[in-house]
């Protein structure tokens, strides 16, 4: 048992769990018709329940999970699983119908038929209100709202964590400087979200669940939402202890865990390790390789992607839409890329200009 727990601890490390999440995401996108069946859902529940109970039988894990402020994340997790399955389930059914030349379920005559708001809609709302009220009251009776020591500006708790819905951003601080993780990336998330309807000109899939008619849009959105946003929140909440050090789900937060971090900048790798010289004193010369890498990433890889996959969308949606979309996707991809560069090469910054507070 202990060996198994040790194994789970290691497997939960960001590098492995993120890779696993990527693989799971790929499988979800590829085999969504199987995953969307009720059989699969029940199989999953039956298989995962003992695993969950086994996790919960561990004191360390239970302490973290049952912290009142962490309850919402469990709820979030369960509802994300459920609703992701539900959309996939509905999309799979509709996709099969569409392939057979039929209309999606939502378009069947009995579903297009107009019904009275009273009682149909109003009673549904009443049901939701009652269910919501009961849920909130029960939750409020079981879990007391936390209150810690009075505020003390001279003594910082360790770890000091932002509210859970921002922990994805705080977790990004491991890989990016605050100006990226805390400002630029969130701003681009907001801009990107607002821009979605103007970028995605595909008229299909408006008003019904489908996957096959909107593969590109749905995979991009789900990647950002499940693989990046939700995943990072979970790591940040459950698996980051004192000093933002990684702790496995069964690992006690003992404050003394020291992780040797010998991260190194790209400029140091090239000038010192590869060329065997000292670092040039001119800042731009010193960082020239990193600057080139960034430009090449957006320019050359952008051009290559366009050539290989993008022509179609470029023609359909026009230049502005396409290049903006490409930019957003490449920008989103910098996060996983930076994560892997850190794990594989202990790379710290691609461009390191602490003199200007500009590190990438």
């Amino acid at each position, binding site marked *: 048992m202990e060996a198994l727990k040790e194994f789970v601890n290691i497997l939960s490390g960001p590098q492995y769990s993120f890779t696993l999440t990527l693989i799971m995401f790929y499988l979800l996108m590829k085999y969504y018709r199987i995953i969307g069946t009720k059989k699969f859902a029940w199989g999953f529940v039956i298989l995962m329940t003992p695993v969950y109970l086994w996790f919960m039988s561990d004191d360390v894990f239970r302490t973290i999970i049952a912290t009142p402020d962490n309850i919402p994340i469990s709820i979030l997790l369960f509802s994300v699983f459920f609703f992701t399955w539900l959309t996939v389930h509905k999309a799979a059914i509709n996709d099969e119908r569409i392939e057979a030349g039929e209309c999606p379920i939502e378009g069947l005559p009995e579903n297009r038929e107009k019904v009275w708001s009273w009682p149909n809609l109003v009673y549904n709302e009443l049901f939701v209100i009652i269910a919501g009220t009961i849920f909130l009251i029960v939750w409020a009776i079981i879990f007391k*709202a936390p209150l810690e020591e009075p505020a003390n500006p001279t003594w910082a708790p360790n770890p000091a964590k932002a509210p859970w819905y921002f922990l994805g951003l705080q977790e990004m601080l491991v890989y990016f*400087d605050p100006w990226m993780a805390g400002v630029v990336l969130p701003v681009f998330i907001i801009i990107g979200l607002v821009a979605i309807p103007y970028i995605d000109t595909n008229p299909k899939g408006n008003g*019904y669940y489908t996957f096959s008619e909107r593969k590109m849009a749905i995979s991009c959105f789900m990647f950002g939402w499940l693989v990046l946003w939700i995943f990072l929140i979970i790591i940040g909440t459950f698996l980051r202890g004192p000093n933002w050090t990684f702790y496995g789900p069964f690992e006690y937060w003992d404050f003394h865990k020291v992780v040797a971090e010998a991260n190194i900048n790209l400029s140091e790798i090239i000038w010192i390790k590869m060329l065997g010289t000292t670092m040039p004193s001119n800042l731009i010369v010193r960082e020239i390789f990193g600057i080139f890498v960034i430009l090449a990433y957006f320019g050359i890889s952008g051009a290559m992607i366009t050539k290989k996959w993008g022509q179609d969308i470029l023609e359909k949606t026009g230049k502005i839409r396409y290049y903006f979309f490409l930019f957003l996707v490449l920008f989103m991809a910098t996060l996983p890329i930076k994560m892997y560069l850190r794990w594989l090469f202990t790379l710290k910054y691609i461009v390191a200009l602490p003199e200007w507070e500009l590190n990438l």
Partner: protein
Amino acid sequence: MSDKSIVDQVRETQVWKSIFRHGPPNNARNRAAIVAGNVFLHLHPIKLKKSGVQLGYTWCMGGLTFFIFLSLTVTGVLLMFYYRPTAEYAFNDIVALREHVPLGIMREIHRWGAHAMVITVWLHMFRVFMTGSYKPPREFNWGVGVILLVLTLLLSFTGYLLPWDQLAIWAITVGSNMAKATPFLGHGGPGATLAQIGDFILVSDKNDVRFQLLGGRFVGEPALLRFYILHCVFIPLVVGVLIAIHFWRVRKDGGISAPL
């Protein structure tokens, strides 16, 4: 008279008729009148496509979000009776709230409701995305929604500070430290050191965005007052107005989306 049920008798009283200007919902005309004649219900269309009513389609997530927002408003007002936003009183008022107020679960409902609203608003966005409901003619309403999402997070974030305990001030410290790194506008962000005229530093910790947000260089009493006003007055008002626009547009854009 005697063969009529009690319900019908009540329906015929002058009091009842003065409040509800329509008969029982047993015919088309009355059903329409109920929805159109009530200020709350008239947010709804009188009739709508069946697919738009089904819980399996909308999950009623937007509706649930709105309901939680209303619950938070009510419980929030109750909490305001007991709470004073000063460094001297804030924490003790919360302690008093949990120790001296009988049957006090208002703070719990408010706190867990705030968390729940963040979750439901995310799920609502997820549903709207998965049904492609942001596509024309609903592009603008999607944009309104994104702003609502951001404001929901900010509401939750500003409220997090108010208990004035260790959890609160350090979470807000971590969060607001990010503002310090805003390019050009934060004193620790890229470009800030470039903005200098001679020896005079334009962007410093005494005037950058974080200072404006907190009313100081750290999370202190001015920050508490700012967050209190943002949390209890400003953001809820803006959210209220935007929700009104959001609902109006759901109707004007043709109701809940359905296959064309």
